C-alpha cells in the first residue's frame, strides 16, 4: 500500500512537471491581473459615455486615442526646439528629478544621521526643518530663480528642497530607534565610528530611510511637473502647459497618463531597491 503511494508520488512530478507552474500562473492572472483590467475597462466605458454627448467639454477616450496617436506611435521624434517626442519630454523631466533627488538623498541622509545622533543638533535643527518642510514646493521657485539666475538649476533645487524633508526626518527617526542592544553589541566589539556607521547604523535604520526615500521620490515627481510648467523648455510639465495654451486637451490627457505611470514606476523602483537592500528584514 505504502509502496504504491510512494511510486505514485514519484511518478507525478515527472509526468506533470509543468502543471503546478501553469496552475500558479493561471492563479496569478485571475487574482492579480484580472481585477485591475476589469476596473480599467469599466472606467473607460463610463468616461466614454459621459463625454460622448454633443455638449461635452472634455474628449472621450476614443477621441483622445485618435488625436494623440501620432504622439503614442512616435515617442522619439525630434523636430528641434520644444517639438520633441513624449519620451524625450519625460526623460528631460526624469533627468532633473535624478539630479535633484540624488542631491536630496545624500544631503538628507547625512543631515538625518546628524540629527539622529546628536541631541544638540536635533534641538537646533528640528524647529527649522519643521517650519521649512511646510513650505509648498512652488513657493521655492521664485527665490531659487533669483538665486541661480537660470531655470535648470532652479528646477533641480525645487526638487531637492521638496524631497529632502521626508528623507531627513525618516533617517533621524530610524537612527533614534536603533535598539540599545545593537549599540551595546557595537560597544562590546569596540567597533570604530566608520564600522558602526556601515555595519550597524545604516542597516538598522535602512527600513526607515527607505520609507523616507520613497515618500521623497513621489514628492519630487509631483514637484517637477509643477515647476516645469513655470520654467518652460523641454519637460513633461511644460508639455502639459504648452498643450493647454494650444487647447489640445487630448495631449494633456495623454501626458497625465504618462506622468502617473512614471510616478508609479519610480515609487516601485525605490521600494524594490529598499526591499533588496534591507533583504526583507524590515524589523525583527
Amino acid at each position, binding site marked *: 500500500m505504502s509502496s504504491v503511494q510512494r511510486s505514485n508520488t514519484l511518478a507525478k512530478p515527472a509526468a506533470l512537471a509543468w502543471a503546478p507552474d501553469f496552475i500558479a500562473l493561471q492563479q496569478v492572472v485571475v487574482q492579480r491581473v484580472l481585477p485591475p483590467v476589469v476596473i480599467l475597462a469599466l472606467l473607460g466605458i463610463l468616461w466614454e459615455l459621459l463625454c460622448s454627448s454633443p455638449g461635452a467639454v472634455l474628449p472621450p477616450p476614443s477621441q483622445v486615442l485618435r488625436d494623440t496617436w501620432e504622439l503614442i506611435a512616435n515617442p522619439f521624434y525630434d523636430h528641434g526646439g520644444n517639438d520633441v517626442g513624449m519620451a524625450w519630454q519625460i526623460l528631460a523631466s526624469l533627468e532633473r528629478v535624478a539630479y535633484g533627488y540624488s542631491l536630496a538623498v545624500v544631503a538628507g541622509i547625512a543631515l538625518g544621521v546628524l540629527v539622529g545622533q546628536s541631541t544638540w543638533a536635533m534641538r537646533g535643527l528640528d524647529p527649522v526643518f519643521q517650519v521649512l518642510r511646510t513650505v509648498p514646493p512652488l513657493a521655492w521657485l521664485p527665490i531659487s530663480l533669483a538665486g541661480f539666475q537660470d531655470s535648470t538649476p532652479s528646477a533641480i533645487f525645487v526638487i531637492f528642497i521638496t524631497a529632502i524633508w521626508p528623507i531627513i526626518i525618516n533617517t533621524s527617526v530610524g537612527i533614534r530607534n536603533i535598539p540599545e542592544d*545593537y549599540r551595546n553589541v557595537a560597544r*562590546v566589539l569596540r567597533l570604530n565610528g566608520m564600522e558602526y556607521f556601515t555595519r550597524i547604523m545604516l542597516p538598522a535604520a535602512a527600513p526607515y530611510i527607505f520609507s523616507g526615500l520613497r515618500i521623497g521620490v513621489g514628492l519630487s515627481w509631483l514637484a517637477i511637473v509643477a515647476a516645469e510648467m513655470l520654467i518652460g523648455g523641454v519637460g513633461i510639465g511644460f508639455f502639459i502647459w504648452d498643450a493647454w495654451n494650444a487647447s489640445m486637451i487630448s495631449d494633456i490627457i495623454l501626458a497625465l497618463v504618462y506622468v502617473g505611470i512614471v510616478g508609479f514606476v519610480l515609487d516601485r523602483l525605490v521600494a524594490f531597491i529598499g526591499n533588496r537592500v534591507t533583504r526583507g*528584514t524590515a524589523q*525583527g
Partner: protein
Amino acid sequence: MSNRYLSIENVDMTFYAKGTQSQVLKGIDLTVDRGEYISIIGHSGCGKSTLLNIVAGLTESTSGAVILDGKEVNSPGPDRSVVFQNHSLLPWLTVYENVALAVNKTCRTKSKAERHAWIVKNLEMVGMGHALDKRPAEISGGMKQRVGIARALAMEPKVLLLDEPFGALDALTRAHLQEEVMRIQDELGNTVIMITHDVDEAVLLSDRIVMLTNGPSARIGEILDIDLPRPRDRIALADDPRYNHYRQEVLRFLYEKQRKVESLAQRRGAVGEKEKDEKEKAKEKRMAKA
C-alpha cells in the same frame, strides 16, 4: 595568581534623574577565580543587571573599581563578552555573519581560513552548524540564544557575562540550553558570571551563588558555595539531599530574609491606608452630624 582573577571592589552605583538620586548598588565586593561559574541572584529591580553592566563596562560605576586580570575595567571590550537577555543578534546578518562580525573584529591576526574555521567551530559547539545561512528571523528563540552564546564564546573572552540568558525561553528549551552551557563550560573552563532569577538554574550551574539584597542600595547578602561534583545531572540531583539543601538556602534567602523588607514596607503602606481610612470615616461622621 589564579585567585582574584576578577575582582569587584567596593562598587557603588547611584543614578541621578530629574533632581532625585537613587542608589542602586552599595559597597559590592566580590572576587572571582579563573574558571569559576558565578551566579548573581536577587529579586527583580535589585540591580543585578546594573552590576553585570558595570563589569561589562557598559555602565560606569559611581565609585569603586572592577579589575580583570590585573587591569582596571573602564570601557566595554571583547575580553568581557556579553550574552544579552534578548539575544540581540543583528537581523540583517545571517547566523554566520553575526558571529563573523565578532570574530573578524577580535581575531585580526588570524588568516581568513582560520577565522572561517573558528566561526564554524563555535557555531557547531552550540549545535547551530546546520543553520549558518539562516537569518535570525528564521530561527527559534532558543536557537537565537545559542547563536548569541556562540558569538560571545568566539571572542575568547576572559569573562563570559550572561544576562538572564534563558529568561525569555520556555522551560524545556531552557533546560536544554543549561545542559549545553554546562557541557561547554566543562570543555572550555571559562570564567562566567550569570544573572538569573531562577533558583534551580543557579544551583545547577554555579560554583558559587551571590545573593543580592533588595534595592535600593542593594548589597551582597550571602554567598553560597555549591559543592556538587561535576558533571552534574539534573535528574540525579533532583533527589540529592545536598542539592535540595542548597536550593532551600537560596529560597530561604529570597523568600524569608529578603521578603521581610518588602513586607515591612507593605505593612507600613497598609498602616498608612488604615489611617487614611479612619480619617475619612471621621470626616464622614462629622459631615453626617452637620
